[in-house]
């Protein structure tokens, strides 16, 4: 009798765990859809599937792995404590990204059975990157559970994020928006339309918005400075490195999507400045949300 009772309890606990896991998977799919649909429905992304240089594509897929592990370490499907769980969560997110992208591409009539294999593979591979980031973020951002943020709290109830962690989150935010926009022709077209004077103002506006988003405007999750710290402390330590991260991520995305070939250095810089504008917004939004 007692044995039976214990079994029953264990079964209930394990089915509860399974239920939680399935809910996590559901949220991940929702996240993947939410974040990847704009790219799945962008013409340039379909074309990129077959013309993107395979080395650049491989590098993008490889870069995505440490990115997902880092994200899993901070958020993830379940409260994780070790790198093994983080690796498992990243694999699940990448898998959901691949499956979701495949299903949507088939649904939209973009993948056909008689397409060449390398084209099918290329299309899915390139879409799986934003979808997997979406899957990872979906788990944390779409859940309303109270128990989500309980991990990593120290004795006085505050959570500490290392400086590298802050910069990492900014990189994820910047990458997210940059990935969405870099494949479109509009990015280079804008850089051709803008004069250097426009670009100068764009740099200043990007940096000002970044700082304003995080410190001046009181959103939920805003960062505050203790009254004894002058404002430029945070500006130098967080905003300026954040902008440079957005710039580097923009450069990487444009290079990945082959937007920089045979173009003069000044034109490259102009395109990077254009793409860094959404990148900077993404970076500061990530600091607030994640």
């Amino acid at each position, binding site marked *: 009798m007692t044995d039976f009772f214990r079994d029953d309890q264990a079964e209930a606990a394990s089915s509860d765990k399974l239920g939680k896991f399935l809910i996590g998977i559901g949220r991940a799919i929702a996240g993947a859809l939410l974040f990847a649909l704009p790219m799945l429905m962008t013409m340039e992304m379909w074309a990129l599937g077959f013309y993107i240089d395979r080395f650049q594509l491989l590098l993008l897929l490889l870069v995505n792995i440490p990115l997902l592990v880092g994200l899993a370490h901070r958020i993830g499907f379940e409260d994780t404590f070790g790198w093994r769980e983080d690796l498992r969560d990243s694999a699940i997110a990448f898998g959901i990204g691949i499956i979701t992208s495949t299903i949507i591409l088939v649904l939209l009539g973009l993948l056909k059975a008689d397409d060449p294999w390398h084209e099918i593979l290329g299309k899915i591979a390139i879409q799986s990157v934003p979808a997997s980031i979406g899957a990872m973020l979906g788990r944390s951002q779409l859940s309303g559970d109270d128990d989500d943020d309980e991990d990593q709290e120290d004795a*006085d*109830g*505050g*959570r*500490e*994020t*290392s*400086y590298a962690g*802050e*910069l990492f989150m900014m990189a994820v935010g910047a990458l997210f928006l940059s990935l969405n926009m870099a494949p479109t*022709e509009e990015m*280079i*077209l804008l850089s*051709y*339309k803008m*004069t*250097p*004077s426009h*670009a*100068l103002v764009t*740099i200043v506006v990007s*940096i000002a918005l970044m700082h304003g988003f995080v410190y001046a405007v009181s959103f*939920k*999750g*805003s*960062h*505050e*400075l*203790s009254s*004894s*710290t002058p404002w430029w*402390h*945070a500006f*130098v*330590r*967080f905003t*300026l*490195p954040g*902008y*440079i991260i957005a*710039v580097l991520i923009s450069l990487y995305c444009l290079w990945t999507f082959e937007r920089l070939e*045979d*173009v*003069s250095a*000044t*034109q490259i*810089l*102009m395109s990077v*400045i254009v793409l860094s504008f959404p990148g900077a917004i993404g970076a500061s939004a990530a600091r607030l949300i994640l």
Partner: protein
Amino acid sequence: MTKSQNSSHTETEEPHWIEWATGIASGILVIVMIGWVAKEAWRQTDAPPDLSTRILKTEATSGGFRVEFEILNRSMATAAAVTVHGEIARDEQPVEESDVTFDYVPAESKSTGAMLFKTDPTGQQLTIVPTGYTDP
């Protein structure tokens, strides 16, 4: 380091030196970027696109001949929808013509393309010239 408490974050008052080092290095990079663009703004003229072409090489393909060429834009203005006309002539009489359009030839940059002919252009008069463009 940043300390999060009740969804608002307070930056620590005694940051590690590496935070300052990163911040200052980033600041220098931003200043270099601004300086570079400012120099370009200073150099900026209203000159329209200045296009020229150069034939790179001719080779036989399975269906005829391919002439690779590059198109150079020396001005600081980008040209869009650049049409390029190619012509093979023998004794001043056009033998074969071909056209190609470039989406963009960015400022101070070069783009490459190719024209396909059925006639072998070697030994003939081959001209490849830009014929028009739009402002982006």
